[in-house]
């Protein structure tokens, strides 16, 4: 949980260079404004009484959308040796979910979402696009993500991008407010049609240290057939 607040007149949640302002319009309506690097966007109006408490919770990026995959482009290709395993520790942005009375009322995407196509226009998948190199300039709402790459083939392979099933991404948090994603496993497998990567999300947090699930992840598998 990031914070909880009541909106009498104005309530603000601030985190680094971003801010979410809740401005009461009347007895029942509250306007939500997102401040991001000196830009202001009105992102919606919600029905909320003065006594209702709202809770801001970290939420997996893109999970609310109808886009099923997330393309994570690594800073540089990583070569995995045959029959070996490496763990990558990186970051992935997260969104903010606004809950009231345990009901999800709004998702605020602080990270600027771009789309990418994985595969062909007819057979491929539309993905949310995250480039690891862009995250250097984005220090706000990032959660640790551990990716375990396992090469089950007999040749060294370079991996440049990973397609993760959004549905399988979950969020964990600890008592200090640290936020982490669940572990993602990627298996490089030889098939008669060439090498593919089988991406599988797990239900374990990316870091040890008493992390508890906020948005529970699921084990979902995605096969990367169109290159990596």
């Amino acid at each position: 949980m990031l914070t909880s607040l009541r909106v009498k007149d104005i309530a603000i949640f601030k985190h680094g260079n971003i801010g979410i302002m809740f401005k009461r319009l009347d007895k029942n309506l509250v306007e939500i404004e997102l401040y991001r690097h000196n830009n202001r966007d009105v992102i919606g109006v919600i029905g909320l009484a003065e006594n209702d408490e709202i809770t801001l919770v970290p939420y997996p990026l893109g999970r609310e959308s109808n886009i099923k995959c997330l393309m994570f482009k690594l800073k540089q290709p990583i070569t995995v040796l045959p029959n070996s395993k490496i763990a990558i520790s990186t970051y992935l942005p997260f969104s903010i979910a606004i809950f009231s009375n345990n009901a999800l009322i709004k998702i605020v995407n602080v990270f600027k979402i771009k789309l990418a196509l994985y595969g062909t226009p007819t057979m491929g998948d539309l993905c949310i696009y995250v480039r690891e190199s862009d995250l250097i300039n984005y220090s706000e709402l990032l959660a640790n993500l551990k990716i375990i790459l396992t090469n089950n083939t007999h040749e060294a392979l370079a991996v440049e991008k990973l397609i993760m099933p959004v549905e399988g991404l979950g969020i964990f948090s600890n008592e200090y407010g640290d936020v982490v994603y669940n572990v993602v496993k990627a298996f490089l497998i030889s098939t008669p049609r060439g090498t593919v990567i089988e991406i599988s999300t797990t239900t374990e947090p990316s870091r040890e240290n008493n992390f508890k699930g906020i948005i529970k992840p699921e084990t979902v598998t995605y096969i990367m057939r169109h290159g990596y």
Partner: protein
Amino acid sequence: MISYWFFPIEWVNENLVHLSRYLGAIIIFIVFYYIGKIVANKVFKIKTITTPEFAYNIAKTTRILFTMIGLLAALSIIGIDLGGLLIAAGFTGIVVGLAAQQTLGNLFSGLAMLFEGRVKIGDIVKINDNFGVVEHVGLLSTRIRLFSGEILLIPNSVLFNTSIYNYSSSIVRRIEISIGISYRSDLNKALEIIRNELWENPLILAEPEPVILVDTLGESSVNLKIMFWVPSQYFLKVRSNIIGILKEKLENAGIEIPFPQRIVWLRTLDTTDEREK
């Protein structure tokens, strides 16, 4: 008098066998008709795993098939020789087939299209300069609601032999825009502005990456070709939006988008000298 009153009973007694046959035939026909209806309903419900138009047409065919079987069974019970009937039906079929060539052509094209899945309900298609959304795919014809609001009914045989642009089968589409900037304008600055605007638009795909080409050196401008991909459903919206934004941003940055222009040099003759001569 008494015999008059007993006449119907006698008639019933004499024709009991025939009556039971007729009754049996009617019952068989009704039973098959309802079985056909139930099976058709069940088939129609599989639209969750197949396309609605496929389910609708298969359900319709199933219903007709069961009704036909019921009718033939009923005729057989009544005692009509089905062999003779089939021979007669064969001859009738040839005559009807010749007379209804086009209708049968439409029917078979419709069936072939359903199995091939050429168009689906909801697809955005362009057929011979007609743009619209497929509303219904029947066994004989296909109904398309044009973007101008009219309904276009196309016989399936025509549709089967026509090239169709299906804009819904791709999840993304490429947009191509040509922009000319004046020779005096800073080309690199223009390229940077365009690149930034393409990145700022959330609906323009990051991969495949947008491509900006310095295409040609035209008569009055340096022509740029901009190519990028968007989700198919946002094609027109993004295209219109980005053209407007690029015009505004380039103009604000002092980059001129010139209209076609030609510099005409006029050579004036010294007419006074000519006159003196």
